[in-house]
């Protein structure tokens, strides 16, 4: 490292052109994309997600192809369950990290010192994360579907893209992954600690449905459709209407989960804007 020359211009000439407009969302979006794509954890997490999503589809469909099918088989669901059940957990980690890593490294102070409009920063982070995640998960859900159906086609169990509900399932199983990531992003903004936020979201996804099963059967039946995870995720990967009539339709359950995410995102935004950084 050499000692740099000191800039010594007597009359100051501006080294940076003046801002043509007040820095806002467009710049913040570019910045957040650079941030997300310039750390290795993003790539490792997304790679793990792709492997889990496609891996599960291959294993599940190969197993079904060799063992045969039972009564209520849904070929679309068989290829997409992995993305929804396992992939979502990995994206939860990424969604939390996008914001909690700013706190664990102290970067948040630098970020806010260059972009003091906190709402803009918060929104930009969420939008970039959602866009990157949805892009990848859309690719994997199509890959899952085609690879899965190709395996199942050896026994002629396969579904085709043109069948009713199939495209919806592919799209929703990609979108739900993003929604869970945003849930974790909101939790990350509230808790500001990676492990804490991830644990909280996994607890919500797994523990609440589990605890709810201890309720009297009639209550559980009424409640199940509102639970943030577990069986209520099933219709999303399913192309046919749910077998369990206690659940909403695919879009209905998707709306329920999105509602949870919206609430956490809103609380996170409120705290992000108000709290000392």
């Amino acid at each position, binding site marked *: 490292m050499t000692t740099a020359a000191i800039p010594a211009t007597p009359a100051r000439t501006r080294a*940076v052109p003046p801002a043509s407009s007040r*820095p806002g969302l467009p710049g913040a979006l570019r910045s957040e994309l*650079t941030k997300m794509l310039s750390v290795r954890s993003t790539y490792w997490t997304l790679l793990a997600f792709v492997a889990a999503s496609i891996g599960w589809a291959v294993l599940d469909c190969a197993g079904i192809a060799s063992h045969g099918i039972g009564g209520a088989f849904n070929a679309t669901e068989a290829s997409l369950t992995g993305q929804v059940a396992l992939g979502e957990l990995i994206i939860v980690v990424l969604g939390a990290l996008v914001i909690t890593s700013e706190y664990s490294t102290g*970067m948040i102070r630098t*970020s806010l010192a*260059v972009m*003091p409009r906190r709402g803009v920063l918060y929104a930009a982070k969420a939008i970039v994360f959602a866009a990157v995640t949805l892009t990848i998960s859309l690719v994997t859900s199509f890959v899952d579907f085609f690879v899965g159906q190709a395996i199942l086609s050896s026994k002629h169990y396969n579904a085709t893209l043109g069948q009713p509900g199939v495209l919806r399932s592919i799209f929703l199983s990609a979108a739900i992954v993003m929604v869970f990531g945003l849930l974790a992003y909101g939790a990350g903004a509230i808790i500001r600690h990676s492990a804490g936020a991830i644990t909280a979201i996994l607890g919500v996804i797994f523990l609440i449905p589990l605890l709810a099963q201890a309720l009297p059967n009639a209550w559980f039946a009424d409640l199940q459709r509102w639970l943030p995870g577990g069986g209520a995720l099933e219709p999303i990967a399913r192309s046919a209407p749910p077998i369990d009539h206690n659940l909403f339709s695919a879009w209905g359950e998707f709306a329920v989960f999105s509602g949870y995410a919206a609430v956490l995102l809103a609380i996170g935004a409120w705290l992000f804007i108000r709290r000392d950084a």
Partner: protein
Amino acid sequence: MIEARGLSKRYGDKLAVDDLSFTVRPGRVTGFLGPNGAGKTTTMRMILGLDRPTAGSVTVNGKPFAALYSAMREVGALLDAKAVHGGRSAYKHLLCLAETNAIPRRRVDEVIGIVGLEDVAGKRSKGFSLGMSQRLGIAAALLGDPDVLMFDEPVNGLDPEGIRWIRLLMRSLAAEGRTVFVSSHLMSEMENTADHLIVIGRGKLIADCPVAEFTADGTAQAATVKTPDDQRLAEVVTAAGGRLERGEAGDLTVRGLSAEQVGGLALTNGILLHYLAPSRVSLEEAFMELTADSVEYQAKARA
């Protein structure tokens, strides 16, 4: 220009910053001094809008930080050199900051050149030494070519060459007409750097004056003397409002009086002096004297 008016910050039942009012003016280096825990960093965090004041207000160029048109073009700050994502390269770190305020890429290369990090710009900052991290933080502060610059303890952990470099940089930034506000808990660092001092202790303003005035202050005057008649000199010095201290080598230091005054006293009282010299009290000593009551955690005071 930074203006604080009645700035206060309370954490629980602890008042970290207590009714601070000061103005940091352009064209000079203003040292922000105080013992550790005096509230310097908290004050800087409030200037940057990171923390909300409990009472009072602080503005930069007449506006609250969050209301600035383009924050990076007006204020550049280095609060904590390690407050970066260590997994990101120095270049990408600076790029993602520049992008928020639509600062062109060539300026990123420029500031990397100014701080001399060309060779490691592509490397992840995790492996940077403290000195390199400080340079990266300074590069970030310079990105928007701002009129106001703030550095929190910028020379902490630097080698002499690095300290000299930062000193020259701060002086040249001030010479360009910028406002330079730099905190330190070490007076000695400010001696050759700052033009003006704002001294705080326990969150309260202790002094706000030019450096020269700070050392020329009555309490900071002193003289070194040698005399065979310690006893009598002590009497007359004390009577004149001074204080006599015994040095290690058997010589005496008179505090609170100038060498001229001591010489005059000796003559009128007929005391023989073997040696008399004005002793320049360092900023460090003046600072210690001023902040002695406000040091928050005194080693001996632990119960």
